[in-house]
């Protein structure tokens, strides 16, 4: 039986039940967080690394979790930060300039054995990679996950208004990109 988030939190705070509760937390959230991370880092192997990093960070910081945010929001925030940190450290290691991170991610996507997009899907991914980091995040969360703006606001620590504006700009740029290459 799957525990609710408040129940999970209660068990995570108890030293005797912590291990089992963490195992249940991983089972409950692994798939959702995987797809959230995959949309950011694109490559499966990289996603696997980041997902593991995310859960390890969660485990190490259980004591620091305050119930000001929901467990779900907290997990998504860690996963997002871990994804961005991963990309930036990998790009830095390969001496990729900040403005070329999109190209770096495109290469990682093309090198992925678990990518199987159609031509139009490939175009969409290329268009998304032309967006600035924040717009890319917002576009992915809104377009693919249909995440409510309020949840996005909690995860990204950005106002709902700013997120709406970001999404609007992102959509326009994606449309322009696809129109331009047709």
């Amino acid at each position, binding site marked *: 039986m799957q525990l609710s988030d408040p129940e999970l939190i209660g068990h995570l705070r108890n030293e005797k039940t912590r291990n089992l509760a963490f195992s249940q937390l991983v089972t409950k959230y692994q798939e959702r967080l995987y797809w959230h991370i*995959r949309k950011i880092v694109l490559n499966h192997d990289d996603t696997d690394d980041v997902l593991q990093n995310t859960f390890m960070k969660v485990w190490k910081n259980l004591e620091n979790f305050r119930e000001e945010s929901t467990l779900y929001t907290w997990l998504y925030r860690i996963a997002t930060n871990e994804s961005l940190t991963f990309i930036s450290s990998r790009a830095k290691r390969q001496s990729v300039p900040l403005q070329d991170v999109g190209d770096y991610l495109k290469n990682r996507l093309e090198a992925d054995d678990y990518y199987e997009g159609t031509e139009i899907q490939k175009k969409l991914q290329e268009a998304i990679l032309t967006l600035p980091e924040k717009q890319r995040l917002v576009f992915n969360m809104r377009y693919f996950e249909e995440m409510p703006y309020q949840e996005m606001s909690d995860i990204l620590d950005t106002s709902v208004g700013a997120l709406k504006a970001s999404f609007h700009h992102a959509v326009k740029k994606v*449309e322009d990109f696809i129109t331009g290459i047709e």
Partner: protein
Amino acid sequence: MKKIVNPEEISGHQKGMERELPFRVPDHYFEDFQARLSARMEAEESGLSGKKVSLFIYMKPVLGLAAAFAAVILLVYFPVRLMTGEKELASNNTVGEEEKIINLVEYVDDHTFFNLLNEEDNDSGLEGRDLEMYIASNYSDYDIFLETQK
């Protein structure tokens, strides 16, 4: 391939573009994930103490080599140097003593030499059997006889 529920197009232009991610995962990926995560967490936890040892492991060959050099120097180089040094010193001393005697005897005539031998406070060191051997090898019987008749 991950299918996103309730697909809805962004705009008319993108009609036909499904909200579907063009990604897939390896078979049984999510079933195996928990086990791989646990293994990594255990490895990292045990690796924390292992990291302290790891520097020693990296330095071990270098330290071993340094210790071997030190052993060679202590056990071979110094003793050999010490021994050869002493021998050189000893041979130098021996040569010095012999040279001194030869130089001394060369410039002394026979008469003076025997006078020196006869002096009571003579402490040249030539006495007894050594003296007999020196006289026997350097003087004929006749020379000795003549000296004793003086």
